């Protein structure tokens, strides 16, 4: 039996094609192309592909074309580890960009770090991803910041005095809420109650009935667009008056498709400012719409940016991992991206950036305000 195992392993080793070396610059990418997060994964992939197109149209990196090698991580930790190994060992990529949520990104981060492959998390917001890792960076805003900005905005812009929290039970949901929970009292917002719900829940009616009784000014509801759409819709059905505050998890055209009119008035914190005057942002939004006939969302924009940041670092520092990591870490006020300037990376490798706040009008996100308070936006 053991012989059989050994034989099978040997066969595997012999048969898999070894990576060929080429003079193009290979950048790895992974996103959940299947699984429950596939909508975001597809979007991220489109954003990243668009970035590669822009870079190559611009003459590539120092004359070499950029080739993106991408794999599906199925939104599973296990799979993203395999993908990491594959990208590092078989494809020998120069750097890797993650277009995936926190869970797969968090599982893969230590592997890239140990193997000295620069790795950028674009939408994975968990604080642990870049922690103590020299080669791992995060251009997504850290989760608690969304909460802080949400609290600030509720108090300053919406003049809210009371809030109820609706917390999705996964890492994203609880991490973003942490920021709100801590910051809200400081702005004089009274947190009346806190409810949690499981990821993938569809029926919020019994919770919303309670919340209607609590009668808060704002409802802080963490979630992804599927949950958000049901919350918005059922809140309207039940006649809930409170303004719903969401985060970048809401930022998807699907949100409008699913919840229709009920989305109007929902406020979110995100990192894609639709009203941005930056040329790259406008070019990106226009080209994305031209290619795919849907408006780009924050996921696509973030993945797009991740690719650009990686390419820019390689362009300035060459292909040595240490140099790339150093170049990313030292970036300041990088403007050539779609989601607003990347102000700086801190010692941990997390970006500091302004946080746009968007409000839904006629089923589209429009700018409400932008948070530039360093107290809030510094990780």
């Amino acid at each position, binding site marked *: 039996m053991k012989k059989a195992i050994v034989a099978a392993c040997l066969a595997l080793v012999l048969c898999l094609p070894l990576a060929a070396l080429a003079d193009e610059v290979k950048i790895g990418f992974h996103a959940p192309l299947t699984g*429950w997060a596939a909508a975001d994964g597809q979007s991220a992939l489109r954003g990243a592909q668009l970035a590669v197109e822009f870079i190559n149209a611009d003459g590539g990196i120092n004359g070499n074309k950029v080739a993106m090698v991408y794999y599906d991580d199925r939104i599973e930790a296990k799979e993203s580890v395999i993908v990491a190994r594959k990208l590092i060992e078989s494809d020998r990529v120069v750097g890797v960009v993650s277009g995936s949520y926190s869970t797969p990104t968090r599982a893969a981060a230590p592997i890239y770090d140990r193997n000295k492959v620069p790795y950028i998390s674009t939408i994975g917001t968990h604080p642990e991803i870049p922690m103590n890792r020299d080669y791992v960076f995060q251009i997504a805003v850290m989760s608690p910041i969304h909460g802080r900005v949400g609290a600030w905005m509720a108090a300053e812009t919406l003049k809210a005095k009371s809030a109820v929290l609706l917390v999705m039970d996964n890492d994203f949901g609880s991490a973003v809420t942490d920021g709100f929970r801590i910051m809200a009292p400081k702005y004089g917002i009274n947190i009346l109650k806190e409810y949690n719900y499981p990821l*993938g829940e569809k029926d919020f009616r019994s919770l919303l009935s309670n919340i209607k009784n609590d009668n808060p000014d704002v409802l802080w509801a963490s979630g992804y667009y599927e949950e958000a*759409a049901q919350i918005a*819709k059922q809140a309207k059905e039940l006649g809930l008056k409170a303004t719903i505050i969401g985060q970048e998890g809401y930022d998807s055209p699907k949100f409008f498709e699913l919840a229709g009119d009920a989305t109007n008035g929902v406020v979110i914190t995100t990192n894609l400012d639709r009203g941005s005057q930056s040329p790259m942002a406008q070019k990106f939004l226009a080209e994305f719409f031209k290619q795919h006939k849907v408006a780009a969302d924050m996921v696509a924009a973030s993945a797009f940016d991740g690719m650009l940041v990686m390419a820019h670092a390689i362009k300035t520092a060459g292909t040595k991992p240490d140099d790339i990591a150093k170049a990313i870490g030292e970036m300041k006020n990088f403007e050539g991206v779609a989601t607003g300037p990347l102000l700086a990376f801190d010692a941990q490798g997390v970006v500091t950036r302004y946080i746009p706040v968007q409000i839904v009008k006629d089923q589209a996100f429009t700018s409400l305000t932008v948070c530039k308070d360093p107290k809030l936006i510094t990780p």
Partner: protein
Amino acid sequence: MGTFLENLVTGAALGSIYALISIGMTMVYGLLKILHVAHAGVYVFGALLGLLAFRLTGSILFAFPAAVLGCALMGYLLYRFMYRRVQDEKPLIPLIVGIGMFTAMGDAYRLAAGPYSISFEHGLAQTGIVLGTFHISFNQVLVIGSAAALLVLVWLMVNKTKTGLAWRASAQDREVAMGIGVNSNYMFGLNFMFGSALAGIAGVLVGLYYGAVNANMGEVWAYKVFVVMVLGGLGNVTGTVIAAYLLGLAETFIISSWGYFLPRDAIAFICMILVLILMPNGVMGKRKQV
């Protein structure tokens, strides 16, 4: 008070959906002693077909017949080409076959319809009845009302028709029923078609209720139906309907009072396991084993 009434309506709507989905599976269990997991796949099929018909014609009135016909056909095919081959095997084999088929169906739907929710909005969704703070949406009325009508239909079908009589007879003793001229395989096929058609309607209703259809919307239900079946007494249609409403209401009120101290399904499964251990024949089960 308003909250209580709203929860009552929410729970009843949830219970209606549980009931419609569970009936087909319960009947199959009663007749063939098979745990028909792929039933949830039929339910999703109904939702998708309904959506397709709605998109093509622009009217939800066409969604229901499309789902009924498509699901009945699918139910029949599942029986004819899958379960019929394994119906006399150990109960585990049809169970695993069903799980395999359901898994494959779920993935096939995902490939066909995409991995994301698709909007299934009809114009009336946002309307409803408002009495002070108490709101009932049109969707809830639709779900509860059509479920009630369908349950009456099921009752008539099972208790007042020759086919229903044959089902009940075959459930008790297949060989004797065959011996007096009931064509059992044909009756089983019919039963699959009927239960599947109900599941199809349930699919459309759920789609309308949440305004969205998703390729993996069957995943929770596939296994939750077991809970309803076990609580309802394994193959007992009346018991299943009662259990479905009880579960819907209990879930709603528990969540309303204590929040999710555990995920909804975990709570339901704990109930089921306790019932199985304490009363292996189910709460309403009365069938004696000789």
